[in-house]
Protein backbone atom coordinates (compact mmCIF):
# COMPACT_ATOMS: atom_id res chain seq x y z
CA UNK A 1 0.00 0.00 0.00
CA UNK A 2 1.68 3.21 -1.12
CA UNK A 3 0.69 6.55 0.27
CA UNK A 4 -0.48 9.05 -2.28
CA UNK A 5 -1.48 11.83 0.05
CA UNK A 6 -0.18 12.62 3.52
CA UNK A 7 -1.15 15.52 5.73
CA UNK A 8 0.63 16.26 9.00
CA UNK A 9 -0.79 18.56 11.65
CA UNK A 10 -2.52 20.65 9.03
CA UNK A 11 -4.01 23.79 10.55
CA UNK A 12 -5.85 26.73 9.11
CA UNK A 13 -6.87 29.73 11.16
CA UNK A 14 -8.20 33.08 10.05
CA UNK A 15 -9.28 35.89 12.28
CA UNK A 16 -9.75 34.09 15.53
CA UNK A 17 -11.38 31.07 13.95
CA UNK A 18 -9.68 27.68 13.70
CA UNK A 19 -11.20 26.03 10.67
CA UNK A 20 -8.88 23.06 10.51
CA UNK A 21 -7.06 21.97 13.65
CA UNK A 22 -3.95 19.78 13.52
CA UNK A 23 -5.40 17.22 11.17
CA UNK A 24 -3.16 14.32 10.19
CA UNK A 25 -3.90 11.28 8.09
CA UNK A 26 -2.79 9.62 4.90
CA UNK A 27 -4.60 8.22 1.91
CA UNK A 28 -3.41 5.12 0.07
CA UNK A 29 -3.14 4.77 -3.65
CA UNK A 30 -6.23 3.25 -5.23
CA UNK A 31 -8.43 3.86 -2.18
CA UNK A 32 -11.81 5.44 -2.19
CA UNK A 33 -11.49 7.56 0.92
CA UNK A 34 -14.40 9.31 2.56
CA UNK A 35 -14.32 12.56 4.50
CA UNK A 36 -17.40 13.16 6.59
CA UNK A 37 -18.50 15.33 9.47
CA UNK A 38 -21.22 17.75 10.46
CA UNK A 39 -21.69 21.01 8.60
CA UNK A 40 -18.91 23.50 9.21
CA UNK A 41 -16.52 20.78 10.35
CA UNK A 42 -13.82 22.05 8.04
CA UNK A 43 -14.04 19.45 5.27
CA UNK A 44 -14.09 21.86 2.35
CA UNK A 45 -11.41 23.99 3.99
CA UNK A 46 -9.28 20.87 4.18
CA UNK A 47 -9.79 20.30 0.46
CA UNK A 48 -8.83 23.91 -0.16
CA UNK A 49 -5.64 23.44 1.82
CA UNK A 50 -4.73 20.25 -0.01
CA UNK A 51 -5.29 21.88 -3.41
CA UNK A 52 -3.49 25.09 -2.51
CA UNK A 53 -6.51 27.37 -2.80
CA UNK A 54 -6.20 28.39 0.84
CA UNK A 55 -2.83 29.00 2.47
CA UNK A 56 -1.76 26.61 5.22
CA UNK A 57 -1.37 28.27 8.61
CA UNK A 58 0.78 25.49 10.01
CA UNK A 59 1.50 21.85 9.34
CA UNK A 60 2.64 20.11 6.20
CA UNK A 61 1.19 18.17 3.34
CA UNK A 62 2.69 15.77 0.85
CA UNK A 63 1.57 14.37 -2.46
CA UNK A 64 3.50 11.24 -3.39
CA UNK A 65 6.33 12.27 -1.08
CA UNK A 66 6.56 15.79 -2.60
CA UNK A 67 5.84 18.57 -0.15
CA UNK A 68 2.96 20.64 -1.41
CA UNK A 69 2.49 22.84 1.64
CA UNK A 70 3.36 26.11 -0.04
CA UNK A 71 2.50 25.27 -3.62
CA UNK A 72 0.07 27.24 -5.74
CA UNK A 73 -3.14 25.66 -7.04
CA UNK A 74 -1.97 25.26 -10.61
CA UNK A 75 1.29 23.68 -9.46
CA UNK A 76 -0.58 21.12 -7.38
CA UNK A 77 -2.90 20.46 -10.31
CA UNK A 78 0.16 19.87 -12.45
CA UNK A 79 1.26 17.12 -10.06
CA UNK A 80 -1.98 15.26 -10.77
CA UNK A 81 -4.49 16.46 -8.21
CA UNK A 82 -7.93 17.43 -9.53
CA UNK A 83 -11.07 18.45 -7.71
CA UNK A 84 -14.69 19.45 -7.91
CA UNK A 85 -16.28 22.16 -5.78
CA UNK A 86 -19.05 22.15 -3.22
CA UNK A 87 -20.79 25.03 -4.99
CA UNK A 88 -20.20 24.00 -8.57
CA UNK A 89 -17.53 26.16 -10.21
CA UNK A 90 -17.86 25.45 -13.87
CA UNK A 91 -16.91 28.04 -16.45
CA UNK A 92 -20.54 29.01 -16.89
CA UNK A 93 -20.26 31.10 -20.03
CA UNK A 94 -18.25 28.48 -21.89
CA UNK A 95 -19.60 25.37 -23.53
CA UNK A 96 -19.46 21.93 -21.98
CA UNK A 97 -16.78 20.96 -24.46
CA UNK A 98 -14.68 24.02 -23.68
CA UNK A 99 -14.93 23.32 -19.97
CA UNK A 100 -13.49 19.88 -20.47
CA UNK A 101 -10.89 21.06 -22.98
CA UNK A 102 -9.48 23.67 -20.60
CA UNK A 103 -8.65 21.04 -18.03
CA UNK A 104 -6.21 19.56 -20.53
CA UNK A 105 -4.22 22.76 -20.54
CA UNK A 106 -1.30 21.11 -18.78
CA UNK A 107 -1.17 18.29 -21.30
CA UNK A 108 -0.93 20.63 -24.25
CA UNK A 109 1.79 22.96 -25.32
CA UNK A 110 0.64 25.38 -27.99
CA UNK A 111 1.83 28.87 -27.21
CA UNK A 112 0.62 32.21 -28.52
CA UNK A 113 2.48 32.13 -31.83
CA UNK A 114 1.76 28.53 -32.75
CA UNK A 115 -1.84 28.99 -31.64
CA UNK A 116 -2.35 32.05 -33.78
CA UNK A 117 -0.55 30.63 -36.80
CA UNK A 118 -2.22 27.27 -36.53
CA UNK A 119 0.81 25.11 -37.22
CA UNK A 120 0.30 21.49 -38.16
CA UNK A 121 1.44 20.37 -34.73
CA UNK A 122 -0.99 22.74 -33.03
CA UNK A 123 -3.89 21.61 -35.22
CA UNK A 124 -3.12 18.00 -34.41
CA UNK A 125 -2.97 18.85 -30.72
CA UNK A 126 -6.35 20.61 -30.89
CA UNK A 127 -7.89 17.61 -32.65
CA UNK A 128 -6.55 15.29 -30.01
CA UNK A 129 -7.83 17.47 -27.17
CA UNK A 130 -11.23 17.76 -28.78
CA UNK A 131 -11.51 13.99 -29.26
CA UNK A 132 -10.44 13.21 -25.71
CA UNK A 133 -12.92 15.77 -24.40
CA UNK A 134 -15.78 14.41 -26.47
CA UNK A 135 -14.99 10.90 -25.24
CA UNK A 136 -15.23 12.09 -21.66
CA UNK A 137 -18.49 13.85 -22.41
CA UNK A 138 -19.84 10.64 -23.95
CA UNK A 139 -18.96 8.80 -20.76
CA UNK A 140 -21.21 11.10 -18.78
CA UNK A 141 -23.92 11.22 -21.45
CA UNK A 142 -23.54 14.88 -22.25
CA UNK A 143 -21.91 14.54 -25.65
CA UNK A 144 -25.03 15.59 -27.53
CA UNK A 145 -25.00 18.94 -25.78
CA UNK A 146 -21.31 19.60 -26.14
CA UNK A 147 -21.78 23.14 -27.48
CA UNK A 148 -24.28 24.28 -24.92
CA UNK A 149 -23.29 26.82 -22.33
CA UNK A 150 -22.38 25.13 -19.07
CA UNK A 151 -24.62 27.40 -17.03
CA UNK A 152 -27.67 26.24 -18.97
CA UNK A 153 -27.35 22.65 -17.81
CA UNK A 154 -29.53 21.13 -15.12
CA UNK A 155 -27.95 20.91 -11.68
CA UNK A 156 -27.26 17.16 -11.82
CA UNK A 157 -25.74 17.49 -15.30
CA UNK A 158 -23.54 20.34 -14.11
CA UNK A 159 -22.20 18.13 -11.32
CA UNK A 160 -21.37 15.39 -13.80
CA UNK A 161 -19.76 17.92 -16.12
CA UNK A 162 -17.57 19.15 -13.30
CA UNK A 163 -16.41 15.62 -12.65
CA UNK A 164 -15.67 15.12 -16.35
CA UNK A 165 -13.67 18.33 -16.32
CA UNK A 166 -11.66 17.13 -13.35
CA UNK A 167 -11.03 13.81 -15.09
CA UNK A 168 -9.76 15.66 -18.16
CA UNK A 169 -6.86 16.86 -16.06
CA UNK A 170 -5.67 13.22 -16.11
CA UNK A 171 -5.20 13.19 -12.37
CA UNK A 172 -3.96 10.45 -10.07
CA UNK A 173 -5.85 11.89 -7.12
CA UNK A 174 -9.42 13.10 -7.49
CA UNK A 175 -11.06 15.14 -4.76
CA UNK A 176 -14.86 15.31 -4.99
CA UNK A 177 -16.63 17.84 -2.77
CA UNK A 178 -20.18 16.65 -2.12
CA UNK A 179 -20.68 15.19 -5.58
CA UNK A 180 -24.04 13.81 -4.56
CA UNK A 181 -25.52 17.01 -3.22
CA UNK A 182 -28.97 17.64 -4.59
CA UNK A 183 -29.28 14.18 -6.13
CA UNK A 184 -32.12 11.75 -5.53
CA UNK A 185 -31.42 8.23 -4.15
CA UNK A 186 -31.29 6.68 -7.63
CA UNK A 187 -28.78 9.20 -8.86
CA UNK A 188 -26.72 8.69 -5.71
CA UNK A 189 -26.57 4.97 -6.34
CA UNK A 190 -25.49 5.66 -9.91
CA UNK A 191 -22.88 8.03 -8.56
CA UNK A 192 -21.40 5.33 -6.34
CA UNK A 193 -21.16 3.01 -9.33
CA UNK A 194 -19.69 5.81 -11.37
CA UNK A 195 -17.00 6.44 -8.77
CA UNK A 196 -16.01 2.80 -8.71
CA UNK A 197 -15.93 2.65 -12.49
CA UNK A 198 -13.76 5.71 -12.97
CA UNK A 199 -11.43 4.59 -10.24
CA UNK A 200 -10.85 1.34 -12.11
CA UNK A 201 -10.80 2.82 -15.57
CA UNK A 202 -8.54 5.77 -14.82
CA UNK A 203 -6.49 4.15 -12.06
CA UNK A 204 -7.44 6.86 -9.57
CA UNK A 205 -7.43 7.47 -5.88
CA UNK A 206 -10.63 9.22 -4.85
CA UNK A 207 -11.25 11.28 -1.74
CA UNK A 208 -14.79 12.43 -1.37
CA UNK A 209 -16.69 14.65 1.00
CA UNK A 210 -20.20 13.40 1.40
CA UNK A 211 -23.13 14.06 3.68
CA UNK A 212 -25.02 10.95 2.71
CA UNK A 213 -23.72 8.47 5.27
CA UNK A 214 -25.13 5.26 3.73
CA UNK A 215 -23.53 6.14 0.40
CA UNK A 216 -20.18 6.74 2.04
CA UNK A 217 -20.42 3.53 4.05
CA UNK A 218 -21.08 1.47 0.97
CA UNK A 219 -18.53 3.13 -1.28
CA UNK A 220 -15.44 3.95 0.76
CA UNK A 221 -12.59 1.75 1.87
CA UNK A 222 -11.77 4.05 4.74
CA UNK A 223 -13.40 7.10 6.27
CA UNK A 224 -12.09 10.08 8.23
CA UNK A 225 -14.46 12.05 10.43
CA UNK A 226 -13.96 15.72 11.15
CA UNK A 227 -15.71 17.77 13.79
CA UNK A 228 -14.97 21.39 14.61
CA UNK A 229 -11.89 21.16 12.44
CA UNK A 230 -10.46 18.18 14.28
CA UNK A 231 -10.05 14.59 13.21
CA UNK A 232 -12.12 12.53 15.62
CA UNK A 233 -12.04 9.12 13.97
CA UNK A 234 -10.48 7.32 11.04
CA UNK A 235 -10.75 3.75 9.80
CA UNK A 236 -12.94 1.28 7.98
CA UNK A 237 -16.63 2.15 7.67
CA UNK A 238 -17.88 -0.40 10.24
CA UNK A 239 -15.40 0.74 12.85
CA UNK A 240 -16.15 4.42 12.30
CA UNK A 241 -19.88 3.83 12.34
CA UNK A 242 -19.71 2.37 15.82
CA UNK A 243 -17.27 4.88 17.25
CA UNK A 244 -18.92 6.67 20.21
CA UNK A 245 -17.32 10.05 19.48
CA UNK A 246 -18.65 9.89 15.94
CA UNK A 247 -22.11 8.98 17.08
CA UNK A 248 -22.05 11.87 19.54
CA UNK A 249 -20.88 14.31 16.89
CA UNK A 250 -23.76 13.34 14.66
CA UNK A 251 -26.49 13.23 17.28
CA UNK A 252 -27.56 16.75 16.50
CA UNK A 253 -27.21 16.26 12.73
Amino acid at each position, binding site marked *: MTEILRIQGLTRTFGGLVAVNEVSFSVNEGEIFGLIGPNGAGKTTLFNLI*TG*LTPVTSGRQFYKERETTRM*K*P*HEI*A*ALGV*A*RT*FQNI*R*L*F*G*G*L*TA*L*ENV*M*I*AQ*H*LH*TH*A*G*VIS*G*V*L*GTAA*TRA*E*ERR*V*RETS*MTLLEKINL*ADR*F*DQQARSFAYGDQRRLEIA*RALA*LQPRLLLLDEPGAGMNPNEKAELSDFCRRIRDEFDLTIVLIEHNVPMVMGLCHRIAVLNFGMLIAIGEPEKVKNDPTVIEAYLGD
Partner: protein
Amino acid sequence: MEGFIATYGFLIVTMTLQAMLALSLYLPLMAGQLSLATPGFYALGGFVAAVMSKNIFVVANGELYPLPVVFVEMAVAAVLCAGVALLVGLPALRLRGIYLALATIAFVEVVRVVALNLPITGQAVGIFGIPQPFRSSFDYLIVSLPMLLLSIFFVYRLERSRVGRAFAALREDELAAAAMGVSPTRYKVLAFVMGAVLAGMVGALNAHLLNTWNTRQGTFDAAILILAYVIIGGSRTFLGPVLGAMLLSALPEVLRAAAGLPGLAPFIAQLLTDGRLILYGLLIALGTLFFPQGLITPDLFRRRRARRKAAPAAPVEAA
Protein backbone atom coordinates in the same frame (compact mmCIF):
# COMPACT_ATOMS: atom_id res chain seq x y z
CA MET B 1 -13.32 61.21 -54.31
CA GLU B 2 -10.31 63.45 -53.93
CA GLY B 3 -12.30 65.84 -51.80
CA PHE B 4 -13.52 63.01 -49.61
CA ILE B 5 -10.00 61.72 -49.04
CA ALA B 6 -8.73 65.16 -48.28
CA THR B 7 -11.50 65.86 -45.79
CA TYR B 8 -11.89 62.49 -44.19
CA GLY B 9 -8.51 60.82 -44.66
CA PHE B 10 -7.34 61.78 -41.20
CA LEU B 11 -10.56 60.59 -39.64
CA ILE B 12 -10.44 57.20 -41.36
CA VAL B 13 -6.87 56.60 -40.24
CA THR B 14 -7.79 57.69 -36.72
CA MET B 15 -10.67 55.23 -36.75
CA THR B 16 -8.30 52.37 -37.48
CA LEU B 17 -5.88 53.48 -34.78
CA GLN B 18 -8.63 53.88 -32.18
CA ALA B 19 -9.90 50.42 -33.07
CA MET B 20 -6.49 49.02 -32.21
CA LEU B 21 -6.43 50.93 -28.93
CA ALA B 22 -9.77 49.38 -28.11
CA LEU B 23 -8.29 45.95 -28.86
CA SER B 24 -5.41 46.77 -26.52
CA LEU B 25 -7.93 47.17 -23.71
CA TYR B 26 -9.76 44.06 -24.87
CA LEU B 27 -6.71 41.80 -24.60
CA PRO B 28 -6.34 41.97 -20.79
CA LEU B 29 -10.15 41.88 -20.59
CA MET B 30 -10.10 38.49 -22.30
CA ALA B 31 -8.34 37.24 -19.18
CA GLY B 32 -10.80 39.01 -16.93
CA GLN B 33 -8.64 42.02 -16.15
CA LEU B 34 -10.03 45.52 -16.44
CA SER B 35 -6.88 47.50 -16.98
CA LEU B 36 -6.96 51.20 -17.72
CA ALA B 37 -3.27 51.24 -18.52
CA THR B 38 -3.58 51.53 -22.32
CA PRO B 39 -3.13 55.34 -22.41
CA GLY B 40 0.13 54.99 -20.49
CA PHE B 41 1.63 52.58 -23.01
CA TYR B 42 0.19 54.55 -25.89
CA ALA B 43 1.95 57.66 -24.55
CA LEU B 44 5.20 55.73 -24.09
CA GLY B 45 5.09 54.42 -27.64
CA GLY B 46 4.48 57.88 -29.01
CA PHE B 47 7.38 59.30 -27.07
CA VAL B 48 9.67 56.59 -28.38
CA ALA B 49 8.80 57.54 -31.95
CA ALA B 50 9.00 61.25 -31.22
CA VAL B 51 12.35 61.08 -29.49
CA MET B 52 13.85 58.69 -32.01
CA SER B 53 12.76 60.71 -35.00
CA LYS B 54 13.99 63.98 -33.57
CA ASN B 55 17.28 62.76 -32.16
CA ILE B 56 18.45 59.59 -33.80
CA PHE B 57 17.35 59.53 -37.38
CA VAL B 58 16.87 63.15 -38.23
CA VAL B 59 15.56 64.32 -41.58
CA ALA B 60 15.60 67.75 -43.04
CA ASN B 61 12.53 69.91 -42.95
CA GLY B 62 9.99 68.89 -45.55
CA GLU B 63 11.69 65.64 -46.31
CA LEU B 64 9.76 62.47 -45.91
CA TYR B 65 10.72 60.22 -43.05
CA PRO B 66 11.71 56.75 -44.28
CA LEU B 67 8.98 54.24 -43.59
CA PRO B 68 11.31 51.38 -42.56
CA VAL B 69 12.54 53.57 -39.72
CA VAL B 70 8.95 53.99 -38.54
CA PHE B 71 8.76 50.22 -38.32
CA VAL B 72 11.96 50.21 -36.31
CA GLU B 73 10.42 52.75 -33.97
CA MET B 74 7.33 50.60 -33.58
CA ALA B 75 9.54 47.63 -32.76
CA VAL B 76 11.43 49.64 -30.15
CA ALA B 77 8.15 50.89 -28.71
CA ALA B 78 6.88 47.32 -28.58
CA VAL B 79 9.93 46.10 -26.70
CA LEU B 80 9.92 49.03 -24.28
CA CYS B 81 6.24 48.66 -23.54
CA ALA B 82 6.60 44.91 -23.09
CA GLY B 83 9.36 45.52 -20.57
CA VAL B 84 7.43 48.14 -18.64
CA ALA B 85 4.31 45.99 -18.77
CA LEU B 86 6.21 43.08 -17.25
CA LEU B 87 7.63 45.31 -14.54
CA VAL B 88 4.30 46.88 -13.71
CA GLY B 89 2.13 43.88 -14.45
CA LEU B 90 3.88 41.18 -12.46
CA PRO B 91 3.20 42.86 -9.13
CA ALA B 92 0.01 44.68 -10.09
CA LEU B 93 -1.85 41.73 -11.61
CA ARG B 94 -2.00 39.99 -8.27
CA LEU B 95 -4.69 42.56 -7.56
CA ARG B 96 -8.24 42.05 -8.67
CA GLY B 97 -11.25 44.09 -9.66
CA ILE B 98 -11.28 47.62 -8.38
CA TYR B 99 -7.78 47.36 -6.97
CA LEU B 100 -6.29 46.46 -10.33
CA ALA B 101 -8.20 49.24 -12.07
CA LEU B 102 -6.85 51.72 -9.51
CA ALA B 103 -3.30 50.45 -9.89
CA THR B 104 -3.47 50.95 -13.65
CA ILE B 105 -4.90 54.45 -13.20
CA ALA B 106 -1.98 55.22 -10.88
CA PHE B 107 0.46 53.89 -13.47
CA VAL B 108 -0.91 56.15 -16.19
CA GLU B 109 -0.74 59.21 -13.97
CA VAL B 110 2.85 58.47 -12.97
CA VAL B 111 3.84 58.10 -16.63
CA ARG B 112 2.13 61.39 -17.38
CA VAL B 113 3.84 63.29 -14.58
CA VAL B 114 7.24 61.81 -15.36
CA ALA B 115 6.86 62.75 -19.02
CA LEU B 116 5.76 66.20 -17.94
CA ASN B 117 9.06 66.68 -16.18
CA LEU B 118 11.69 64.98 -18.29
CA PRO B 119 13.54 67.27 -20.71
CA ILE B 120 13.77 64.47 -23.24
CA THR B 121 10.01 64.31 -23.56
CA GLY B 122 9.73 68.06 -23.90
CA GLN B 123 8.14 68.59 -20.52
CA ALA B 124 4.93 70.59 -20.63
CA VAL B 125 5.35 71.61 -24.22
CA GLY B 126 6.05 68.18 -25.60
CA ILE B 127 7.77 67.38 -28.83
CA PHE B 128 7.02 69.31 -32.00
CA GLY B 129 7.63 68.84 -35.64
CA ILE B 130 7.72 65.09 -35.75
CA PRO B 131 8.53 64.17 -39.36
CA GLN B 132 6.03 62.30 -41.46
CA PRO B 133 6.60 59.25 -43.63
CA PHE B 134 3.69 60.17 -45.88
CA ARG B 135 2.54 63.30 -47.70
CA SER B 136 -1.08 62.99 -46.68
CA SER B 137 -2.92 61.60 -43.68
CA PHE B 138 -4.85 59.18 -45.84
CA ASP B 139 -1.63 57.45 -46.89
CA TYR B 140 -1.08 56.30 -43.33
CA LEU B 141 -3.78 53.77 -44.08
CA ILE B 142 -1.11 51.80 -45.92
CA VAL B 143 0.33 50.97 -42.50
CA SER B 144 -2.61 51.31 -40.16
CA LEU B 145 -5.10 49.23 -42.08
CA PRO B 146 -2.95 46.11 -42.45
CA MET B 147 -1.93 46.61 -38.82
CA LEU B 148 -5.59 46.64 -37.80
CA LEU B 149 -6.42 43.61 -39.91
CA LEU B 150 -3.45 41.73 -38.49
CA SER B 151 -4.50 42.65 -34.95
CA ILE B 152 -8.03 41.48 -35.60
CA PHE B 153 -6.75 38.25 -37.10
CA PHE B 154 -4.44 37.79 -34.14
CA VAL B 155 -7.17 38.22 -31.57
CA TYR B 156 -9.60 36.08 -33.57
CA ARG B 157 -7.14 33.21 -33.74
CA LEU B 158 -6.04 33.72 -30.14
CA GLU B 159 -9.61 33.34 -28.87
CA ARG B 160 -9.85 29.94 -30.56
CA SER B 161 -6.54 28.64 -29.34
CA ARG B 162 -5.30 27.01 -26.19
CA VAL B 163 -4.06 30.32 -24.76
CA GLY B 164 -7.41 31.92 -25.56
CA ARG B 165 -9.15 29.15 -23.66
CA ALA B 166 -6.90 29.78 -20.70
CA PHE B 167 -7.83 33.48 -20.84
CA ALA B 168 -11.53 32.63 -21.02
CA ALA B 169 -11.26 30.28 -18.06
CA LEU B 170 -9.52 32.97 -16.02
CA ARG B 171 -12.20 35.44 -16.98
CA GLU B 172 -14.97 33.09 -15.92
CA ASP B 173 -13.49 31.90 -12.63
CA GLU B 174 -9.87 32.53 -11.77
CA LEU B 175 -9.70 30.09 -8.87
CA ALA B 176 -11.33 27.26 -10.76
CA ALA B 177 -8.98 27.92 -13.66
CA ALA B 178 -5.99 27.68 -11.34
CA ALA B 179 -7.37 24.44 -9.94
CA MET B 180 -7.48 23.12 -13.51
CA GLY B 181 -3.82 23.92 -14.03
CA VAL B 182 -3.92 27.38 -15.62
CA SER B 183 -1.36 29.65 -13.98
CA PRO B 184 -3.23 32.91 -13.32
CA THR B 185 -0.17 35.12 -13.02
CA ARG B 186 1.45 33.86 -16.17
CA TYR B 187 -1.58 34.30 -18.38
CA LYS B 188 -2.82 37.56 -16.89
CA VAL B 189 0.60 39.10 -17.38
CA LEU B 190 0.73 37.69 -20.91
CA ALA B 191 -2.58 39.34 -21.81
CA PHE B 192 -1.48 42.57 -20.18
CA VAL B 193 1.83 42.63 -22.05
CA MET B 194 0.10 41.94 -25.38
CA GLY B 195 -2.25 44.87 -24.78
CA ALA B 196 0.67 47.09 -23.85
CA VAL B 197 2.65 46.17 -26.96
CA LEU B 198 -0.29 46.93 -29.24
CA ALA B 199 -0.95 50.28 -27.54
CA GLY B 200 2.73 51.20 -27.78
CA MET B 201 2.91 50.46 -31.49
CA VAL B 202 -0.22 52.50 -32.15
CA GLY B 203 1.27 55.36 -30.18
CA ALA B 204 4.44 55.26 -32.24
CA LEU B 205 2.52 55.52 -35.50
CA ASN B 206 0.14 58.13 -34.19
CA ALA B 207 2.98 60.39 -33.10
CA HIS B 208 3.96 60.74 -36.75
CA LEU B 209 0.38 61.23 -37.84
CA LEU B 210 -0.24 63.99 -35.34
CA ASN B 211 3.12 65.61 -35.88
CA THR B 212 3.37 66.55 -32.18
CA TRP B 213 3.30 64.47 -29.04
CA ASN B 214 2.85 65.54 -25.45
CA THR B 215 1.36 64.38 -22.21
CA ARG B 216 -2.12 65.32 -23.30
CA GLN B 217 -2.03 62.17 -25.43
CA GLY B 218 -2.00 59.68 -22.62
CA THR B 219 -4.47 60.93 -20.13
CA PHE B 220 -7.39 59.91 -18.04
CA ASP B 221 -9.69 61.24 -20.75
CA ALA B 222 -8.12 58.80 -23.19
CA ALA B 223 -8.93 55.96 -20.82
CA ILE B 224 -12.54 57.13 -20.79
CA LEU B 225 -12.71 57.16 -24.59
CA ILE B 226 -11.29 53.67 -24.90
CA LEU B 227 -13.55 52.37 -22.13
CA ALA B 228 -16.51 53.80 -24.01
CA TYR B 229 -15.46 51.95 -27.18
CA VAL B 230 -15.37 48.65 -25.37
CA ILE B 231 -18.50 49.13 -23.30
CA ILE B 232 -20.64 50.38 -26.14
CA GLY B 233 -19.16 48.12 -28.76
CA GLY B 234 -19.24 45.00 -26.64
CA SER B 235 -16.76 43.43 -24.32
CA ARG B 236 -17.34 39.73 -24.95
CA THR B 237 -16.06 39.43 -28.51
CA PHE B 238 -13.22 41.08 -30.38
CA LEU B 239 -15.51 42.66 -32.98
CA GLY B 240 -17.20 44.73 -30.31
CA PRO B 241 -14.28 47.00 -29.40
CA VAL B 242 -13.33 47.41 -33.06
CA LEU B 243 -16.79 48.48 -34.18
CA GLY B 244 -17.35 50.52 -31.01
CA ALA B 245 -14.12 52.42 -31.60
CA MET B 246 -14.85 53.12 -35.25
CA LEU B 247 -18.38 54.23 -34.51
CA LEU B 248 -17.50 56.44 -31.56
CA SER B 249 -14.45 58.05 -33.14
CA ALA B 250 -16.47 58.90 -36.23
CA LEU B 251 -19.39 60.18 -34.19
CA PRO B 252 -17.93 63.61 -33.37
CA GLU B 253 -17.51 64.24 -37.08
CA VAL B 254 -21.10 63.32 -37.70
CA LEU B 255 -22.15 65.55 -34.87
CA ARG B 256 -20.02 68.36 -36.17
CA ALA B 257 -21.71 68.03 -39.54
CA ALA B 258 -25.07 68.01 -37.81
CA ALA B 259 -24.04 71.15 -35.95
CA GLY B 260 -23.76 72.87 -39.30
CA LEU B 261 -27.40 72.22 -40.10
CA PRO B 262 -29.43 75.39 -40.47
CA GLY B 263 -32.04 76.23 -37.90
CA LEU B 264 -30.24 74.80 -34.88
CA ALA B 265 -30.02 76.92 -31.76
CA PRO B 266 -26.40 78.07 -31.38
CA PHE B 267 -25.91 76.34 -28.05
CA ILE B 268 -26.99 73.01 -29.46
CA ALA B 269 -24.55 73.51 -32.32
CA GLN B 270 -21.87 74.28 -29.76
CA LEU B 271 -22.79 71.24 -27.72
CA LEU B 272 -22.61 69.01 -30.75
CA THR B 273 -19.19 70.32 -31.68
CA ASP B 274 -17.49 70.35 -28.28
CA GLY B 275 -19.49 67.87 -26.30
CA ARG B 276 -17.62 64.73 -27.27
CA LEU B 277 -16.55 63.89 -23.74
CA ILE B 278 -19.98 64.64 -22.35
CA LEU B 279 -21.37 62.19 -24.86
CA TYR B 280 -18.82 59.49 -24.18
CA GLY B 281 -19.18 59.85 -20.44
CA LEU B 282 -22.96 59.56 -20.64
CA LEU B 283 -22.68 56.64 -23.05
CA ILE B 284 -20.50 54.82 -20.56
CA ALA B 285 -22.97 55.39 -17.75
CA LEU B 286 -25.89 54.35 -19.97
CA GLY B 287 -23.92 51.42 -21.35
CA THR B 288 -23.32 49.94 -17.93
CA LEU B 289 -27.03 50.21 -17.23
CA PHE B 290 -28.47 48.87 -20.43
CA PHE B 291 -25.82 46.86 -22.15
CA PRO B 292 -23.26 45.70 -19.63
CA GLN B 293 -21.97 43.32 -22.24
CA GLY B 294 -22.05 45.92 -24.95
CA LEU B 295 -23.94 45.89 -28.20
CA ILE B 296 -22.11 43.02 -29.82
CA THR B 297 -22.54 40.00 -27.66
CA PRO B 298 -21.62 36.39 -28.41
CA ASP B 299 -25.30 35.50 -28.12
CA LEU B 300 -25.82 37.19 -31.45
CA PHE B 301 -23.43 34.67 -32.93
CA ARG B 302 -24.80 31.73 -31.02
CA ARG B 303 -28.26 32.19 -32.40
CA ARG B 304 -26.87 32.04 -35.92
CA ARG B 305 -24.76 29.00 -35.24
CA ALA B 306 -27.58 27.04 -33.64
CA ARG B 307 -29.18 26.86 -37.08
CA ARG B 308 -26.32 24.87 -38.50
CA LYS B 309 -25.49 22.17 -36.02
CA ALA B 310 -21.89 21.09 -36.44
CA ALA B 311 -20.83 17.46 -36.06
CA PRO B 312 -18.20 16.87 -33.34
CA ALA B 313 -15.55 15.97 -35.90
CA ALA B 314 -15.78 19.32 -37.64
CA PRO B 315 -13.95 22.30 -36.14
CA VAL B 316 -16.01 23.62 -33.27
CA GLU B 317 -16.04 27.37 -32.98
CA ALA B 318 -15.38 28.58 -29.50
CA ALA B 319 -17.07 31.91 -28.95
